[in-house]
């Protein structure tokens, strides 16, 4: 997807409630549809391709911040841990 800094959608070929937001890292923060009611952290999340996902899953997985459950870590963080889940 080419990078554009249009922050509003007037005149764009998608619905009026469809917005693209970009940051300086070139990552799209996509608010696809406000009816989706998605949280801001989802809009700013890093999209991993299947290839990238497999690369993480194929390693021991010790680099993940918080061991979100993946193919290598099915148990998550339990009752406590760096995630602050308690």
């Amino acid at each position, binding site marked *: 997807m080419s990078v554009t800094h249009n922050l509003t959608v007037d005149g764009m070929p998608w619905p009026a409630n469809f917005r693209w937001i970009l940051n300086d890292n070139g990552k799209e923060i996509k608010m696809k549809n406000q009816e989706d*009611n998605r949280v801001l952290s*989802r809009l*700013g999340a890093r999209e*991993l391709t299947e290839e990238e996902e497999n690369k993480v899953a194929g390693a021991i997985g010790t680099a*993940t*911040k918080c061991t979100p459950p993946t193919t290598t870590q099915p148990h*998550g963080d339990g009752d406590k841990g760096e995630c602050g889940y308690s």
Partner: protein
Amino acid sequence: MKVIMLAHENENHAAPIKWALEQAGYQVACWGGLSWTEQQQASLLLDEETRMALGPYSVEPGDAVWIRRPDQPVQNPKVAEADRKFAELEYRSFYHCIAYTLETLPVWCVNKFSASRFINNKSVQLRLARACGLRVPKALLSNSPTGVRDFFDHNPNKMICKGFTPHVWQREGQGGVAVTETFELKREQLPPDEVLTYAPGIYQDMVLKQFDIRMVLMGHRVYSYALHNPLKALDWRQDAGQGKIEVEIVPTPPDVEKGVVAFAAKAGICFGSIDFAVDMKGDWWFLEINEQGQFLWLDQFNKEARTQERFCAFITAPEGSTEPLEKREGLFPPFSEYEKIYAKLQQQGETPDLAAIAASSPYMSKEP
């Protein structure tokens, strides 16, 4: 003396540390947390003496207990629906009894459960760090649209947004996942007010950084590692997962070390992984601490990091020992040796059921 790990044997840090300790002749027990299954049942006898059994293991005086990553308490799924909520709360209360009682027994907890629950709060971290003389970026934790907009309106600096907890969204059908990470957010990028109420967030001054630091705290000792990311991503974690960063051992500035040791004392912790950002002037900015943060990946990137050997030396030393860990690190095999074993295990392994994992995990969701 044995080392009891509150984690499953296959947890990504428990497995290599258990292996390394056993290679050096230490006894290790892994207990995955409280559950209805026999291996994860527990008993706490309070008589003239207190006795605690975690699955098949007795907690004995002198043991070291690494509260790594136990499961959330799990009740028997056969319990009547009418009793389910009661059973859930009973399991949770009993687990808390176990975890808090551990720190009253003559064992060494890494870390004490009370301290871990306390310091896992981001606002507590930032306040204590600032009180201990560490540089801390200005931050707002909020779900108030007015508060967030006001924070942006009165702050000329670049800003970031991040969550309190990590999360993974797995796309159904088309493959691929989305993973939470820190991202830049500008005033004009703020979404409609209601979106800001869908989930609270952390909004913080962005540190314009040269590089990141992952520091590992073990007792009174700190080990610092610079993380160089050629992609200059704001959040290095996913690039680390992709093997795209470089890890360099660096000295810790004395004022930062002093502040971290004071921070640990105030927080009541003896172990943790701490993130700093180093700005263009070379100043270190405290970002957060993960008291059970990942550290073995540092060894994967730089064999001289030796966090596996040092952690083994740390957890088998007497509580409060000030002896340099380097004196005993040679007793334990390096992580690179475990990697060879893991490679063989992986060849024999089966692919887990991702859908079942996503359904049962609080950190993973499916999306269309």
